[in-house]
């Protein structure tokens, strides 16, 4: 929801980044305010997943230029865990499996760590169990997820639900959801999308990184950005996603090629 006087959460200016010496992001800029839903779209290799990982502090990527501030704080001065505690959440495209760590143990540990850092009350196992079961209902998750190792042997859809469950528990200001729709059948997509919608408030914001517009049938974005070759080349409203769906990415890339150098 766009509000005229909403505070800025994330301000990215002229961001350049590389992985193993190869430049991926080239002059990327983006502003996200409280209450807004942004969709970051683009063809494979355009840099949208890289952007998501850089916001979370993935160590494989080097920031080579530009800035990112989160609620006025230099994001790049923070370690990944400090960003998480400050309220940045990355929903992974490929959630990581952690054999040997029970999902319930993992969820409670992360929840309590973040709660403590925010000066809020930690929960004992019984209290936490009540909370997590409540949140799991939102995502129509079977309680036996709690007893299994983190993401181990989960189907693609189960992993994505587990990501949104973590988002529900950690209560981020900015949720960056990387290809959350990939690997979901239509029922799972509906459930995950309604979970994300239910978590939206006027105080937080969502950045959906997605290749396809089908997720946007369920989560209506305020802004749609199209990335190409490491930067945003076009920004519009929801209708831009529909146009991309109908005409493909080549159309917008070609159109921006003609206007190369113009600010996004």
């Amino acid at each position: 929801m766009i509000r005229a006087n909403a505070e800025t959460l994330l301000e990215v200016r002229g961001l350049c980044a590389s992985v193993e010496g190869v430049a991926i992001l080239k002059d990327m800029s983006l502003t996200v305010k409280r209450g807004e839903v942004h969709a970051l779209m683009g063809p494979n290799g355009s840099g949208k997943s890289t952007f998501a990982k850089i916001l979370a502090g993935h160590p494989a990527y080097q920031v080579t230029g530009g800035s990112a501030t989160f609620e006025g704080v230099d994001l790049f001065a923070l370690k990944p865990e400090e960003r998480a505690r400050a309220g940045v959440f990355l929903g992974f495209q490929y959630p990581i499996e952690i054999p040997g760590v029970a999902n319930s143990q993992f969820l409670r540990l992360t929840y309590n760590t973040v709660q403590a850092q925010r000066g809020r009350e930690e929960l004992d196992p019984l209290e936490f169990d009540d909370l997590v079961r409540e949140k799991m209902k939102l995502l129509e998750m079977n309680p036996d997820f709690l007893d299994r190792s983190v993401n181990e042997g989960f189907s693609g859809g189960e992993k994505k639900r587990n990501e949104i469950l973590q988002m529900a528990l950690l209560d981020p200001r900015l949720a960056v959801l990387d290809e959350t729709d990939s690997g979901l059948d239509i029922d799972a997509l509906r459930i995950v999308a309604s979970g994300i919608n239910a978590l939206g408030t006027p105080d937080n914001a969502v950045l959906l990184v997605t290749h396809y517009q089908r997720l946007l049938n369920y989560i209506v974005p305020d802004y749609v950005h199209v990335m190409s070759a490491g930067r945003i080349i076009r920004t519009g409203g929801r209708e831009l996603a529909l146009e991309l769906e109908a005409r493909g990415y080549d159309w917008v890339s070609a159109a921006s090629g003609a206007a190369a150098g113009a600010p996004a």
Partner: protein
Amino acid sequence: MSTPVAIAGGTATAAGDFLKRLLKGQTQALERAPDWFTRLRSAAVDRVGALKVPSMRDEEWRFTDIAPLTGRAFEPVQTAPTLSQADIARFNIEEATHRLVFVDGVFAPALSAGVDGPGLQVTTLAQALAVRTPGIEAHLGIHAGYQDQLFSALNTAFLRDGALVMVPPETAVAEPVHLLFIATRKDGAYHPRCLVSAAPGSAVTVVEDYVALTDEAYFTNAVTEIVVADNARVTHVRVQRESGAAFHIGRCAVSLGRAAAYRSVAVALGARISRLDHCVTQAGSGSECTLDALALIGARQIADTHSVIDHGQAHGTSRQLHKCIVGAAAQAVFNGKVLVRRGAQKTDSAQSSRNLLLSPKARVDTKPQLEIFADDVKCAHGATVGQLDADQVFYLQSRGLSEAAAKSLLTYAFGAEIIDRIPITTLKARLGEAVLANTAGTP
């Protein structure tokens, strides 16, 4: 009654001195012992005189330098301090109704429980020998051969007392039996001995537990023999949590009858240098064994496991998962031999060695050793050595855990796979805490 011993290789070497000093205080032979027992001891004394102290020039010891052990003076322990229940409360396993406690190798009746009950027999070797309990001569010193193993010979030469667990036929014992060996004395040498005999159709769980009430160096030289008769089932949890300065040499020999089952979980946390020779012989057809192990070491610790699974009969199965977590400048050694003899057709064996190195100076030497003389068998093996997965660390960090907490949790999880296989709730929880404490704050 002690027989004078001549040491092979002369007395000029440090290793020779090590043996000489050890043997100087050889304990008195047991009063009222049967003749066969006295003969066993003398034969072992003879072997000690003939065998050399192993060094890295020996194939079986090529990765493990025991010079810090053989270069030290240890004295056999004759008497032990009196401990109270409170002193050893933290080693208590609530589920275990039968417990034998040995302090510096000496039986402590006041700390023990459930001794000499009906049915299941949990007692000391000395007591059983004195009353001529049958069924000991056929096994004691038979399975853990001392003829060519110096440390087993040394243990047998000092044989005087030990733990005895005998399960009657067709008897399933629900509660675990706890055999607790406590070291308290600096520079002490002691030679714990266990014999577990499960009669046909019986089932029992035995915890063999080595602990310390000192941080000092001492020498534990343990030998355990486990006999699992036809259709019997033994679950064996072996815990080595000696002091960080101690030396622990152990041999565990297991013999399986027809359709017998042996499951073991061995956990090595302590000792400056530890070595376990774990040998399972499938003497009957259709028997099965599972050997799971975890070595979690840091500082300059060395933990060496040599296992031998001897498939001597057809239709045997074996499963082995050996894990090592190696930090600082520690070194883990694993040599897993699987022998499939001619005629042991339809053997199904799988071995996996998985190792986690936590520092650049940590080291692991792992070696599968398959010797197969039958042609219709299934034998798999594999080994991995690696560091913590960077993606897993980042995933946990992205959820708010510090890098140190993330690494600690992942290290714990690696070890927990083995700890979780211990079928005793309190021991599992206790060891889980110990693993967590040892992995916390890893670099």
